[in-house]
């Protein structure tokens, strides 16, 4: 016959090895149903407090019991997992750049510069990040919203003011001699938000928008 500590060890082992939450009925099978649900529940409570000082905690979810890491340890884990931070698509970044450099700008302005339709999702993405907001409406048919960048945008990019954005006068100069040398920097690390984390800067550029002609 197993003593309570042995039962706890077996429960702990099974729960650590399980991928999904395990209901108590399932856990009882570990002991061929010879241990009552109440006892299992009591021992799980004990286990939970045994683990209360650790980086992993035992939680009771709707579908059963599960070990999971404590959110406080997340930032350590992130350092280890080389999982790349998600990236915004080129469409999002270009829209943001246009709003930053040409603000206040309407969707029409952005579309004119980019040459493609700007999907509402792009605007929504930037708004939900609180990087842009509507500062007014242009007095033209449809009264389009005027977007501008916010203070949060400056904070998140580590800027004190828009003036700290890279000045771009030299670009118009090189534009005059056609667009040849400019493709290079643009080919940079822009990846689709949902794409696989390919090596930064490597993979082919992916335009998530309808291709410009």
């Amino acid at each position, binding site marked *: 016959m197993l003593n309570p500590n042995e039962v706890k060890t077996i429960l702990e082992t099974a729960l650590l090895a399980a991928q999904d939450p395990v209901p108590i009925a399932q856990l009882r099978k570990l002991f061929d149903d010879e241990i009552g649900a109440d006892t299992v529940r009591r021992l799980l409570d004990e286990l939970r407090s045994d683990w209360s000082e650790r980086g*992993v905690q035992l939680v009771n979810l709707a579908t059963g019991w599960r070990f*999971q890491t404590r959110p406080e340890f997340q930032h350590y884990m992130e350092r280890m997992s080389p999982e790349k931070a*998600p990236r915004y698509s080129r469409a999002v970044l270009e829209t943001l750049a246009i709003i930053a450099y040409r*603000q*206040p700008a309407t969707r029409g302005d952005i579309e004119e510069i980019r040459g493609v339709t700007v999907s509402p999702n792009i605007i929504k993405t930037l708004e939900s990040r609180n990087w842009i907001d509507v500062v007014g409406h242009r*007095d033209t048919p449809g*009264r389009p919203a005027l977007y501008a960048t916010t203070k949060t945008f400056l904070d998140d990019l580590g800027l004190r003011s828009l*003036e700290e954005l890279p000045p771009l006068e030299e*670009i118009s100069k090189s534009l005059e001699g056609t667009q040849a040398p400019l493709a290079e920097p643009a080919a940079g690390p822009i990846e689709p938000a949902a794409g696989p984390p390919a090596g930064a800067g490597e993979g082919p550029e992916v335009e998530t928008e309808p291709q410009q002609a």
Partner: protein
Amino acid sequence: MSGDVVTLRPEGAQRIALVRGEPVMEIPADLYIPPDALEVFLETFQGPLDLLLYLIRKANIDILDIPMARVTEQYLAYVEAMRHRNLELAAEYLVMAAMLMEIKSRLLLPRPKHVTEEEDPRAELVRRLLEYERMKLAAQKLDALPQRGRDFAAIGVWIEQTMVERLPDVNVRDLENAWRHLLSLARVRQHHKVTREELSVREHMTGILRNLAEGGFREFNELFEPWRGVSVLVITFLALLELVRERLVEVTQAEPYTPIYVKLAQHAESE
């Protein structure tokens, strides 16, 4: 294996076969094997080398001095049994049969006086038997090692990360690159020349618009921050002019020398 009626392991330790749950402790001396077990028994062999090894071990023969006549005879008997029972007989069994008979016949030839080991016609066969035996045992030892999935599981507890949503980072370079890319597209008709001055004007345009966002009139003077210096005053003024030019704000004055008022362009807020 639990469901099998017949489990045979001629290479095993104690019992040689389980026939209908009954352990068979040793293979009967001759070829007598219960008929239905024979099939399974024969199929258990991994090939001619396995069968040969079995015969040699069963007879407790010294592998270095294999009595070729006897072993060949037994081997052929098993092969014949397999054919008889219509078991799919791999070609290798027949090749081995031929090899055994060849060795046997060479042993019958009169020997030269000094026989070196290399000239023993059995040498190659023995070498192969030993190597196969070694690998066969190694396979059993590998199988005895605890194996992930079968004997243990890797631990990978759920990583709780719903609390922290990971958002993409953007840096200034990304914006610059995006902007450059835009410019590189020939469809940018007018040259968007962005200078520091222009940027700060634009920044102030945004600022004024925010200032007016609650609606209604603001006094012209209130839009300026004289304590930030002359250049800011000038830029704010330029921003205001630009807003007027773009018809984003309206500037009104009832009569000369009365306060000037600024508000968002009429239609902008009220239609």
